[in-house]
């Protein structure tokens, strides 16, 4: 890992000195050793703040939305999940590929700061190597099949409707509507989110089970075919809601109904719910 850190710093210094990028987004150490939050390096003198270790969990891609019309190029360090997130933002028409300079990093997985084990979000990662980049750091990590990807969902599907309802009610009762899940999600990039339109009537501001469930289910549905399975939502949630169990359920169904599909592997493939086939499966209509 420290080899990558050295390379990161060198590349950052080079890009900033030459003026190829205006600033570069990476990671630096927080106060505690198990924290490596995002860092914004604006000059070569600060490049030594950059770090690559097993706690670089936060995604860097979403910050590109803060600067949609940058004065110069924006540099960004991107692992596999970040690269897919960047593709997601490009495909959703939120940023321009020409405005960013992607330094890809091959990632073998991050650790959960609380336990030191492999982070939940990295457990089912199928694309550890960035699929889009301008230059690449690190040796490619072998891509393995993840047969457990839908295991938790299959377990939940076996429950009776009342048990399922009880399970999800328990979870959504915990929700404090902080919207951390929405704010970290690269697929949640609407300029005005439906929850902010509370005069219109979509979503009330009250915190109760009904409104919390409405928020959770609606957000899951809104991102259904665009979710890149980065797991940031579940990581950011302060109440440990199992959000990926909702998102992956939708992905599983979409795979089953409309053919195998993974979001944002490129910027051309239309997401399944935005297109149709004349011979689509019709189960009950």
């Amino acid at each position, binding site marked *: 890992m420290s080899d990558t850190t050295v390379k990161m710093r060198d590349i950052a210094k080079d890009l900033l000195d030459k003026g190829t990028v205006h600033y570069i987004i990476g990671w630096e150490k927080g106060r505690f050793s198990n924290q490596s939050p995002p860092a914004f390096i604006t000059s070569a003198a600060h490049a030594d703040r950059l770090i690559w270790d097993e706690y670089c969990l936060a995604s860097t891609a979403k910050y590109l939305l803060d600067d949609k019309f940058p004065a110069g190029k924006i540099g960004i360090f991107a692992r596999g999940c970040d690269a897919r997130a960047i593709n997601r933002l490009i495909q959703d028409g939120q940023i321009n590929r020409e405005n960013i300079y992607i330094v890809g990093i091959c990632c073998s997985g991050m650790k959960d700061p609380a336990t030191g084990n492999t982070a939940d979000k990295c457990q089912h990662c199928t694309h550890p190597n960035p699929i889009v980049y301008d230059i690449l750091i690190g040796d490619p990590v072998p891509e393995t099949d993840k047969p457990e990807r839908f295991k938790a969902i299959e377990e939940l599907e076996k429950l009776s409707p009342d048990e*399922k309802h009880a399970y999800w*009610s328990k979870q959504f009762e915990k929700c404090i509507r902080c919207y951390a899940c929405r704010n970290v999600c690269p697929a949640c990039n609407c300029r005005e989110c439906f929850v902010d339109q509370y005069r219109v009537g979509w979503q009330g501001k009250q915190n109760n089970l*009904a409104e919390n469930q409405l928020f959770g*289910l609606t957000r899951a549905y809104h991102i259904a075919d665009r979710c890149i399975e980065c797991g940031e939502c579940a990581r950011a949630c302060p109440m440990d809601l199992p959000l990926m169990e909702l998102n992956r359920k939708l992905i599983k169904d979409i795979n089953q109904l409309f053919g195998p599909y993974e979001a944002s592997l490129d910027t051309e493939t239309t997401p399944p*719910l935005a297109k149709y086939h004349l011979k*689509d499966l019709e189960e*009950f209509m």
Partner: protein
Amino acid sequence: MDVIEEQQWEPKILAFCCNWCAYSGADLAGLNRMKYPENIRILRVPCSARVNPQFILRAFQKGADGVLVAGCHPGDCHYATGNYYTRRRFQVMKRLLEYSGIDPRRFQAKWVSGAEADKFRATVTKLCEDVKAIGPSRKLGGSK
């Protein structure tokens, strides 16, 4: 719920009907004096693709016991392609509803053409019977 309330309970079913086919089908059913349950409240939309899955969630939240989405048969959409999206959308939505614990019999999506008055009658009657058998929807509970 006490016995008297239970005996008096009638399901509330919200039916989103597309203007060109399903609504006309319902209209034809009325013209032909076909009897179908009064529990149905019809909401006319220009196309079944107008129905936002959030409407379904909101309906259940606000007290609907069952929801029906009815549109033109694929290939016959007045706007050419709307109901193809409806088809994909509501298959996914139905599974999501089921996964969150709502009985799958509460939500139906059906194709009803302008001439299929009887299909409309049969669909809503069956939906009403199914929902009556299950009982009132207490899930995604009211925002009260």
